[in-house]
């Protein structure tokens, strides 16, 4: 008889060091409840535009189900290169400076693994999407948190960034337009940050997946700043702009050395991004602009609606200029973010994500995704108003 075994001892130390996700418990709370309105979803409520889905279906009918180049379909990389030249004058060589990935999530992981040495410090600007800190840890780096503030409308300033930079700092992870705050950057702050990046010889991983969801002013890619192209890998994808979340398609643009290093990991872990999604992405770039702009205008209207709504029911909310999240302040009610959202769910059946899930800097706030139908948004704000009145 062989001895019994406890499989947990086979779990690697590095996994044990990954901080637990604050959201798991919330999942369990929601499941089983009826008549729930969710503002907790980080994806569009639109379905992928029909012309994109139709192109994917057509490609399947034709039997396009093979592997592609590790870097991604050449036509897709060509189109990406042209698109970014047209939008921003950015010049990326489709043969060596673009990698198509399985969503931006994969790109975050392999970008960090491609540049971080064991023990390197990587600055993560919070409140931020929840994947960055674990991805830094898994890459063997040490996350260093920098917090943005409500008074700056959650923009990163050189002032708060500078003290976090040490001799061990390797890279900074930026995410603007930002999930969860909806913040965007302004040129003045970006230039100051670029100065710091150059002065301290840092690398920038810039997750710009909400690029197209910029409602006021024009998005500024970090790599478009003078002297920043070689120091930056821009990560982006099709999920948010073209409502293609489940198709899992992203891309990275950067210097050939960085893109090649990322491809080294990608080729052995993913081989290539799914071909059906790549074909859909190509169609999105070629013919998807009108539909994308239509969705963006729709989000823009909902944005005004929810911001006005939150302020009316007494939750102070600044006007986010990007993404599809509003980030109202609930601290004035005397409840923590976690208490507020848990009671809101139990008493009024509305899901909103407590801000502290996205880092300590998010405490006191609530992430409310307005990528939901107008009916749901109206109901959610009414219920939240009743909840606040009843406190």
């Amino acid at each position, binding site marked *: 008889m062989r001895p019994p075994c406890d499989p947990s001892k086979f779990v690697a130390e590095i996994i044990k060091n990954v901080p637990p996700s604050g*959201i798991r418990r*919330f*999942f369990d709370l*929601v*499941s089983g409840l009826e008549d*729930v309105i*969710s503002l*907790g*979803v*980080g*994806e569009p*409520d639109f*379905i992928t535009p029909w012309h994109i889905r139709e192109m994917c279906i057509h490609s399947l009918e034709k039997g396009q189900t093979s592997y592609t180049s590790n870097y991604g379909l050449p036509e897709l990389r060509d189109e990406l290169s042209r698109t970014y030249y047209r939008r921003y004058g950015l010049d990326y060589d489709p043969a060596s400076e673009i990698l198509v990935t399985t969503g931006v999530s994969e790109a975050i992981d392999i970008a960090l693994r491609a540049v971080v040495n064991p023990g390197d410090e990587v600055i993560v600007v919070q409140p931020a*999407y*929840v*994947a960055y800190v674990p991805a830094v840890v898994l890459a063997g780096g040490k996350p260093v948190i920098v917090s943005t503030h409500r008074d700056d409308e959650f923009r990163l300033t050189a002032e708060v960034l500078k003290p976090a930079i040490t001799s061990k700092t390797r890279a900074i992870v930026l995410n603007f337009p930002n*999930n969860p705050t909806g913040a965007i950057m302004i040129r003045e702050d970006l230039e100051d940050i670029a100065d710091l990046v150059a002065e301290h010889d840092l690398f920038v991983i810039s997750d710009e997946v909400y690029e197209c969801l910029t409602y006021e002013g024009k998005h500024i890619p970090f790599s478009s700043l003078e002297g920043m192209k070689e120091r930056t890998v821009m990560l982006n994808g099709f999920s948010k702009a073209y409502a293609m979340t489940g198709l899992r398609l992203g891309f990275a643009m950067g210097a050939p050395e960085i893109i090649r290093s990322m491809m080294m990991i990608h080729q052995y872990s993913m081989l290539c991004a799914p071909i059906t999604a790549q074909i859909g992405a190509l169609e999105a770039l070629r013919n998807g602009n009108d539909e994308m702009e239509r969705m963006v*205008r729709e989000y*823009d*209207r*909902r944005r*005004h*609606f929810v911001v*006005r*709504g939150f302020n009316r029911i007494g939750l102070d909310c600044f006007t986010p200029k990007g993404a599809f999240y509003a980030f109202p302040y609930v601290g004035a009610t005397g409840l923590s973010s976690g208490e507020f959202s848990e009671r809101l769910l139990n008493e009024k059946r509305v*899901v909103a*994500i407590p801000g502290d*899930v996205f880092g300590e800097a998010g405490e006191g706030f609530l992430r409310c995704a307005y990528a939901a139908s107008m009916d749901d948004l109206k109901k959610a704000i009414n219920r939240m108003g009743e909840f606040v009145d009843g406190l």
Partner: protein
Amino acid sequence: MDEKIRHILEILENDARASPDEIAALTDMTAQEVSQAIAKLEETGVIRHYKTIIDWDLVGENYVYAVIELKVTLERNQGYQVIAERIYKFPEVRSVRLLSGDYDISLTVRGRSMKDVAFFVAEKIATLDQVQNTATHFVLKTYKEDGVILHEPEAIKRLPVSL
């Protein structure tokens, strides 16, 4: 076009009953500003009309619709406008369009029965001097009307929480 005006028009195109208050909340304007903007759009003819799309079948009013294609001959000094005017004045005629291609004019006709529609075409349209010939296509089912899908399948469910 002004962005705010575009927003107002898109909202109304989708929902003619949206109130100035509702539109104001969606566009970061005051209700008064919205009312003024709409009044001006109505005055200048940008907004032509507000209407409702009705599924008459559901209340047992089984209207019959037909698309009629017409080939016409133009008389001296008379454009298509004259024949179009003669035709669109009949209340049975729901739409009139000038087309490129084999036929010149396409109309939609509504009646209470196929016989009704057929007689209307035979007596009122085919007999017009300018009309050379007609082709009548009865509508069997309407899937989408002016941008509105009439019987949409159930929506796909998203996860209630995702980051």
